[in-house]
């Protein structure tokens, strides 16, 4: 028992509420020292930082602030050891359900002395600290194995594609760098030429650039940060802008918090129950000879390509003129989720024939009036449904993104120290300490824990070593 306790001197954090949509999310932090960390960022309604003297099982209302910017209004529940789920000092932060906000909070704590919990780690701690019965051991083990499995699957699916390739490049470059350093250390007696300090500096700078670029791409996960791209397309004057304005009108206050985080202007971002959607308004698509309008239309096609979802707006009055099969056969629509929005239903007397028509064509459609606001909520529900069912947008994403972010931050710090080390002319054995730290953290993402064999392997394959 004693021996376990000492292992848990690290403070762990993770979202505690289930994946999916919720107005409110709970983030759990466990470990001695978590009160002090939270107190640095929490400000009670009275403007005081007084989390520390709160009693156990109390709830405090206030804001989490970082560098004078409010992240969110939160409720913090405090549990003093041993009266908590894990048996350790624990906080539960209830915040708004937005993935963006949850990510912000998790990353703030990770940058200030916490680390992300491993799958099932709260439960493991609870068990080892005597909070769960021994008979539950099997169940606890199953939970850990299962959570780890799903986390692994997610991490794996995330690591396919671009990120994986970039991380692999990064790790290889780091191993290369480490092998240059180690070559000098372990093979000083060999007849090989060693890297010049200038070359090493250039290499570290290159690695730093790579790490920073990767870090930025991971910092909140592009999808969370920028929202899910939704293109609004359609012929001119079908009511695209009216629709956008109607959708946005109630939400401005909330989205204003992430000003500057999206590439497009703030008016284009909508927060539906914690999920952020970035609406791309496009120029109307039609055949034209006007050069300027042509440029606008070709831009529209580009923007549609960026989007995951296309809302194709048409007017209830001109359905007859449209050949949807032809419209959607264009390259820009390939792989998109397309929803036809039939606008201006306030101008038609009967909906039924229209609905039947779309059913026959097997095209997903919603019938609304942007002007009167009728059925607008259907669009929100539809978007939300699509997102939730796609299941990439859940808490696991926060965790795995934050994990990557955390690892890359540590790698960046280590590389900066390496650079300082080279400048102050310290020898390779000390440089190696920092390089290995960077490699360790990257290995936390890629699962490549063993370092020495890779370094030695690189040395043996590149240099003629051995008497």
């Amino acid at each position, binding site marked *: 028992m004693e021996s376990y306790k000492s292992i848990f001197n690290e403070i762990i954090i993770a979202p505690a509420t289930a994946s999916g949509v919720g107005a409110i999310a709970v983030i759990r932090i466990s470990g001695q020292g978590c009160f002090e960390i939270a107190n640095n960022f929490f400000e009670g309604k009275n403007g005081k930082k007084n989390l520390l003297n709160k009693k156990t099982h109390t709830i405090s209302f206030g804001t989490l602030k970082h560098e004078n910017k409010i992240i969110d209004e939160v409720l913090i529940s405090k549990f003093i050891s041993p009266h908590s789920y894990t048996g350790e000092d624990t906080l539960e932060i209830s915040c708004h359900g937005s993935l963006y906000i949850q990510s912000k909070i998790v990353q703030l704590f990770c940058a200030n002395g916490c680390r992300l919990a491993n799958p099932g780690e709260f439960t*493991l701690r609870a*068990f080892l600290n005597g909070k769960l019965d021994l008979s539950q051991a099997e169940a606890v083990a199953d939970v850990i194995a299962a959570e780890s499995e799903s986390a692994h699957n997610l991490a794996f699916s995330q690591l396919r594609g671009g990120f994986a390739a970039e991380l692999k490049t990064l790790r290889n470059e780091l191993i290369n760098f480490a092998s240059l350093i180690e070559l000098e250390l*372990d093979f000083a007696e060999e007849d090989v030429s060693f890297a010049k300090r200038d070359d090493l500096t250039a290499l570290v700078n290159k690695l730093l650039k790579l790490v920073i670029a990767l870090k930025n791409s991971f910092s909140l996960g592009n999808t969370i940060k920028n929202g899910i791209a939704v293109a609004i397309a359609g012929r001119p004057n079908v009511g695209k802008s009216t629709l956008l304005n109607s959708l946005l009108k109630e939400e401005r206050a909330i989205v204003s918090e992430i000003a500057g985080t999206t590439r497009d202007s703030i008016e284009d971002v909508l927060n539906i129950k914690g999920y952020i959607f970035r609406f791309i308004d496009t120029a109307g698509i039609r055949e034209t000879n006007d050069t300027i309008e042509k440029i606008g239309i070709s831009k529209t096609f580009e923007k549609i390509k960026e989007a995951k979802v296309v809302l194709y707006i048409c007017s209830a009055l001109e359905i007859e003129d449209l050949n949807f099969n032809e419209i959607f056969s264009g390259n820009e629509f390939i792989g998109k989720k397309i929803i036809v929005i039939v606008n201006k239903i306030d101008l038609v007397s009967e909906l039924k024939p229209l609905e039947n028509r779309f059913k026959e064509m097997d095209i997903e459609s919603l019938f609304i009036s942007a002007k009167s606001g009728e059925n607008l909520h259907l669009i929100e529900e539809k978007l939300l449904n699509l997102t939730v069912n796609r299941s990439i947008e859940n808490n696991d994403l926060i965790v795995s993104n934050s994990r990557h972010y955390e690892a890359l931050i540590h790698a960046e710090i280590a590389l900066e120290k390496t650079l300082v080390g080279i400048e102050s002319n310290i020898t390779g*054995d000390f440089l*190696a300490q920092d390089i290995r730290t960077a490699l360790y953290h990257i290995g936390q993402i890629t699962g490549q824990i063993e370092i020495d064999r890779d370094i*030695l392997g690189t040395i043996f394959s590149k240099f003629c070593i051995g008497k």
Partner: protein
Amino acid sequence: MKNSYDVIVVGAGHAGCESAAAAANMGSKVLLITMNMQTIAQMSCNPAMGGIAKGQIVREIDALGGYSGIVSDSSAIQFRMLNLSKGPAMWSPRCQSDRMRFAEQWRLMLENTPNVDFWQDMVSEIIVENDKAVGVKTSLGIEFHSKAVVLTNGTFLNGVIHIGEKQLGGGRSGEKASKGITEQLISLGFDSGRMKTGTPPRIDGRSLDYSFMEEQAGDEHPGKFSFTDTKPLTKQLSCWITYTNDEVHDILKTGFDQSPMYQGRIQGLGPRYCPSIEDKITRFAERNRHQLFIEPEGWNTVEIYLNGFSTSLPMEVQQKALEKIPGFKNAKMFRPGYAIEYDYFPPTQLDLTLQTNKIENLYFAGQINGTTGYEEAACQGFMAGINSHLKINSLPPFILSRSDAYIGVLIDDLVTKGTDEPYRMFTSRAEYRILLRQDNADIRLTQKGFDLGLISNERYTAFQEKLANITTIVKAIKETSVSPEEMNTNLESVGSAPIVQKVKAASVLSRPNVSLKEFANADVYASINVFSIEEQEQAEIDIKYSSYIQKEQDAAIKQSQTENIKIRSDIDFKNIVSLSSEAKDKFSKIKPQTIGQAARISGISPADISVLMIHLGR
């Protein structure tokens, strides 16, 4: 004839000798069996001890009370401290040895160790009762009984020597191989494999023209390995450096069609860091020369060892190629280079004391475990000797952690990860490299050696005095201030900024380029200079590199928390349903002894470790 012992050690190479000495010095009755009493502690490869990472191991063995350091010091013909331009963790002692004196010194030290008996014979079988080793049978038909058996067979198990198309059974040039043990162990359920290594030709030094070569002399102020009162060298022999060239390479290539390597006659895996000359010119074809070291084999012999020219090509090709090396025009060969293939047993079948998982009280040490190198072998033998003694006396095992010693890194690597090529120590294998220095080996380990009974009271008293002196020096440097007048001239001379007011000596010493020497004009130096160079150096390193040392110490402490959670030996991993199947297999096979060790097994996830911890209960 007495035929009952506590510990029987099979093989009298570096591993066997250290093993016998350690067990005997702890009080066990030991029988050392070797196939040839004339080749005890034979240096079968190059005549040198130590080197980068290896020198640290010799210092560690010495600090714990083993013999390798003393033997090396008293048989050295040249001493160099390698890597002095790097940080202190990289400083690595290395000596050239007089091959014959080295072996003689070992034999004399063993003969003077009470409790060691010798027997010349070939062991053909281990006597096993109820899965316990209880003795050995020899080719002369004798049965020796014991409580534990340490196998240190080196390259002798089914050894096959290759020279060109010739194949000879043998464990070393001119010595026969050992048969029977591998077959018996396999029938007992052990896995075995083949490895290969090689040596270069030996040459008559009188036939060489040294004017074509660069001289490599020993250190001006030679150091030594042992922390005991052995004497540093007062005169030394030089080595010589020369290079191969395209002509040499071309001749070597003519023998490739008869090469046992390229014709597939050798199946065993060789070390990538010790390639044969034919490997070098094939894999690094762009290089038009390779460095060669001419190493004298002793004070009086004319034989030289051509380091860097390991080969198994036909003898005639070796000779012809040699003659094209600068300085080798008239070279006379004493014996050709050869490759040797031998059996080893993947070391994942051992526990951290080097006892086999299958057979109790049976220990493996040295090349039988897939390692290479005298130092690697010696330290394993030493640890197996200690642990066999502890085991048969029902005492707790002696295990060094990865932050205690390179010896700990080596054994943990072998037992936890295994090896598929001959394992040699490199400093990069150690995650706590800054802690595992040659200068502090005694500080790390001599207390442990004393607790084991391997360090004399006299030596222990001196050791404690050294510790006290270092503390005094550190205190003086940390607490005494130095003034600009005392320091600035010397600071300027090493290019360090002058100080403007009185500051603590420690803060100046922490600067790059500044050493204790720069304090020569300061009052504090007078109080320091009364202590030995080693003590001053120790204090200097402690202060100068404290931030790096601290970082690794913190990491080591964190690591030790998982290292301290023991896994019961009777745990049945296959029955832990939540473990991944890979973890079940690997845990069952490797049988990790601590949570820390389990976590280092490749392919094991944090979740597996969590599940395992839950099953250990709280």
